[in-house]
């Protein structure tokens, strides 16, 4: 049975309706993908070697970029905050200011953005190429779950490596601030670390920890989803990689704001 024609005045609403349905369907697929990946991650048989490979790929190989960005972020913060605080004669608070900014905000956010650019994009491209060269289909017809072999290890690796890399970023960043504030600008070492001990508590560290865990899941989820659903050859891979990086980066910032509002 054919549908009756829609009055011209209602056509914009029809278009809007189709768009909303497409968005809802797409979100549904995105959510279902996560549930499938999570199920594969928590049910045996567990694939230890693929997980180790992903930890190496996402975590270990991102160490250099985390060290570099952590150090320079801390140094920039040390410099800028020192001059701001010196206007009010409050240079003594440089240590806690640098530490709180890095531990609560910049550590988790910047390390997540850096790993997205380095490992997330590669993750999408790798899965995308496996899709267009039928390697994912080959796994499927071998009766072996691509979710278990390709997606779940990435998700778990994100969960494990993001907090570790954030911790590393935090430590290096705080020492970057120390280099500038103490070694370069002459603040006393005791003041820098002593005030930090007074003002930074476990709640601040846990805020950064929960953020990094959620970013780890978010980035690997988005990047594997985009790679897994690539179509249209090399152009499709390029498009999916760009979308994965942009979407992950935006979601990191949005989710950071949300968690910053909710967490103590």
């Amino acid at each position, binding site marked *: 049975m054919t549908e009756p024609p829609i009055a011209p005045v209602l056509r914009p609403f029809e278009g809007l309706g189709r768009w909303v349905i497409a968005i809802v369907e797409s979100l549904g697929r995105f959510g279902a993908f996560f549930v499938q990946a999570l199920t594969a991650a928590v049910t045996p048989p567990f694939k230890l070697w693929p997980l180790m490979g992903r930890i190496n790929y996402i975590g270990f190989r991102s160490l250099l970029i985390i060290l570099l960005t952590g150090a320079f972020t801390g140094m920039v913060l040390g410099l800028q905050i020192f001059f701001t605080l010196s206007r009010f004669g409050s240079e003594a608070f440089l240590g806690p200011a640098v530490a709180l900014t890095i531990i609560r905000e910049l550590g988790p956010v910047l390390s997540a953005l850096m790993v997205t650019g380095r490992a997330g994009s590669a993750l999408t491209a790798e899965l995308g190429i496996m899709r267009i060269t*039928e390697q994912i*289909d*080959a796994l*499927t017809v*071998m*009766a*072996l779950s691509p979710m278990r072999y390709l997606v779940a290890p990435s998700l778990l690796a994100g969960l494990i490596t993001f907090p570790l890399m954030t911790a590393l970023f935090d430590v290096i960043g705080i020492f970057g601030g120390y280099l500038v504030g103490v070694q370069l600008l002459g603040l006393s070492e005791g003041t820098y670390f002593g005030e930090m001990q007074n003002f930074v508590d476990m709640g601040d560290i846990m805020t950064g920890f929960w953020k990094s865990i959620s970013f780890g899941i978010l980035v690997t989820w988005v990047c594997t989803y985009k790679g897994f659903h690539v179509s249209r050859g090399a152009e499709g891979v390029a498009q999916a990689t760009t979308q994965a990086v942009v979407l992950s980066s935006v979601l990191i910032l949005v989710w950071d704001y949300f968690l910053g509002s909710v967490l103590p």
Partner: protein
Amino acid sequence: MIKVSGLRKSFRGQPVLRGVDLEVPDGSITIIIGRSGGGKSVFLKHLLGLLHPDSGRIEVDGVDVTGLRGRALDEVRKRYGVVFQGGALFDSMTCQENVAFPLREKLRLTAAEIARRTDAALDQVGLAGVGDKYPEEVSGGMRKRVAIARALATEPEIVFFDEPTTGLDPVLVNTIHHLILDLHRRLRFTALMVSHEIPEIFEIADRVGMLHDGRILEVGPPATIQSSQNETVRQFIRGEPDTRA
């Protein structure tokens, strides 16, 4: 036996399969021919459970597999071996690791047994000693042979070949065809191949089916197809230009 009846599939309202009927007898080599874009790969993906039909039925040894999903479908797939068009070898693994992969992951074998069967599989496709190379380091013909070795390593009952000779020169086409024929004689699997290597496929097929416009136009022994009176079949076999294309 694989029995397909009334298989239909449309993408965005565009019909690709319009009621495919086909029987693949046990132990035979059945080859589906047809023009590019005629739905051959879509048809094969339905048999592998990678696509699901809008309507119709696929039976494997009398069991309806059309509606199967998840583990039930995987149980059927354990009987399959598949050679993909581009080989679909895992590029992060060496050729040897590619062949060993399904043995290691699908069967409960010792490391020694996996190594023995991997070597045997590579040996029977004439690739003994090149297993430590990565797929990108070997030629197109060798990649196809590794893909065949991987598909046959688990000794499947049914093997699907998706245009296994695409992109190869005529000598390699014949080499691969005769390799498939030789392996089939030794291992007695049921083979379903999608190809448009005319006339080479007539030398190895037990049955040939012509898929055109989403339907099987004609199916039968090679001699019957070669002497077909159907204009479309004749035109395809002779490679005559289509003035409407």
